[in-house]
């Protein structure tokens, strides 16, 4: 099998989206798309599943909420119950209203930062890493499809001829 990577370069997001639909209908698998901004509607076309990153945010948030509540229970009720301004600290439940703000803030803090860190790690984008986009202009005004010849039963020439049916700007290839 050939392990050639074909890059189809477009100059417009709409054209790429329509071309992607055309190519997929011919049985071509599009490995990835590089673009300067999100192309809405491309995910189902190239078969991307919905990200689960929002679920992780919920989990981090819940961890934050429980940490905050446990912490405040320990500090204010268990370890050193203070009588502040004639308002004693008896139990977590009776004191709960005044713990709400910090519980909320800490939950948001953990959810936001946890999700941001997950986002960085999952994308594998961290300080000092090099950009993996094939052409520098894909972050400016170029829209590129990455197609691997080995991903479908079609031959390289067939794939290229299908790409050439669309208004592609340039076809580039790379042996890997």
């Amino acid at each position, binding site marked *: 099998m050939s392990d050639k990577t074909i890059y189809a370069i477009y100059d417009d*997001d709409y054209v790429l989206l329509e071309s992607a639909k055309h190519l997929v209908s011919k049985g071509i698998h599009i490995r990835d798309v*590089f673009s300067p901004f999100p192309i809405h509607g491309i995910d189902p076309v190239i078969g991307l599943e919905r*990200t689960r990153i929002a679920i992780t945010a919920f989990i981090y948030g819940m961890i934050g909420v429980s940490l905050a509540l446990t912490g405040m229970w320990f500090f*204010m009720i268990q*370890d050193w119950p*203070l009588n502040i301004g004639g308002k004693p600290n008896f139990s977590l439940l009776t004191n709960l209203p005044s713990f709400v*703000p910090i519980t909320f*803030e800490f939950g948001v803090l953990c959810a936001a*930062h946890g999700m941001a860190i997950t986002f960085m790690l999952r994308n594998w984008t961290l300080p000092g890493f090099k950009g993996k986009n094939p052409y520098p202009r894909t*972050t400016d005004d170029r829209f590129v499809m990455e197609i691997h010849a080995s991903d479908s039963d079609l031959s390289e020439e067939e794939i290229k001829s299908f790409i050439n049916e669309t208004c592609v700007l340039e076809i580039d290839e790379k042996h890997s």
Partner: protein
Amino acid sequence: MHKEAAIREPLILGSPTYSDITKDVLYTIENKPTKLWKVLMTIATIIALWGVGCILYLLGVGIGTWGLNNTVGWAWDITNFVWWVGIGHAGTLISAVLLLFRQKWRMAINRPAEAMTIFAVFMAGMFPMIHMGRIWMAYWVLPLPNQFGSLWVNFNSPLLWDVFAISTYLSVSLVFWYIGLIPDFATIRDRASRPVQKLMYSLLSFGWSGNAKAWQRFEEVSLVLAGLATPLVFSVHSIVSMDFATSIVPGWHTTIFPPYFVAGAVFSGFAMVQTLMLIVRKAMRLEKYVTIKHIEYMNIVIIVTGSIVGVAYLTELFISYYSGVEYESYAFINRFSGPYWWAYWAMMTCNVISPHLFWSKKLRTNLAFTFVMSIIVNIGMWFERFVIIVTSVHRDYLPSSWSMFYPTWVDIGVFMGTLGIFSVFYLLFLKYFPVLAFNEVKSILKSSGEQYKNMSDEEFKKLHPVKK
């Protein structure tokens, strides 16, 4: 392709291509700083250094050098704190709330507004810290194990809620802003020709490549962060207001405070965004992207929030009379007719009367008028905080303790200084960071660009043919 109603005015004027948008926004980053920038930077640096000097003097001598006394323990410091936090709120409102409402006009102003948020919260956070007197003990506000037995911080106190609220707000805003910046930094990285510039932006862009999955996650993260930041921004200023509302000082002890403070914060924040954006769009030639329509939309927000603030003032006044509590009613009689009457009436004129001039379409689309109004609103909102804080405490229950507050040069110097430090940060942002979220702006070009809006479907298909 997503089509927008023809009666909506375009948000991008002219017919820029994707690459034109990049070039227009990155012009300042890729070229040497202009004379105007250098002049402004010099002035801002001088004021900032003066402010740093005042702060160092204050730390050395103690907060007795402020005009505070036994009766008025909170004055300009907390006024400035609340004012700066309030300014910060517009940034989050634009980037988070308008994202949830899918308002496309946010894209041209969210980046500079969020930068404003972050720098304003820096300035705000400084005031409670220097107010502690011994700033090196500032870490005592954190619940850390310590040498006094297990003496913890008081989690029942709104002042501690504030510590958590402000620090969460600052760090979450920073994360939200930075995640949005990453793709734009990647564009600068890929265009940079000078090695140092390439290295710097390569580090800042975290190796972003803009593949489909990354964009999908990016959009999800932005949406969830907006969903988290929206209640956060409301909670932060509510908690700031509880610093006052949970006390028993007449004039502070009111349940209207949280919504009233939040509306005031948005009001002053949008005014500050106007002040900054009117200068930025002119100086950086971004009129194509920050249009008169954007300015008008912001002025409409100013009318709405200004009206909410006005209703709150009048409600407060009425309830102080209707409650029948003589201390409460005196607090308000003293506000509008006592020794600080000028502050109260300055607040009333600037915040309640002046925003209603914006009902006139001619005035709210006039740039010079908007600029003047934005300054007036900022002054009015500063006076609002001053009125709430100083006029309430300077005459409370015990007439024998009544006193007056007069600011000293250190009070004034520290406040001027924070304006300088803020300007230094903001000017650095304008020079080295992409001022508009230009990659996001590209994504609305087809639905809200002037060129595309006037185009029929046939013309569009001719311009962007899909098949050969």
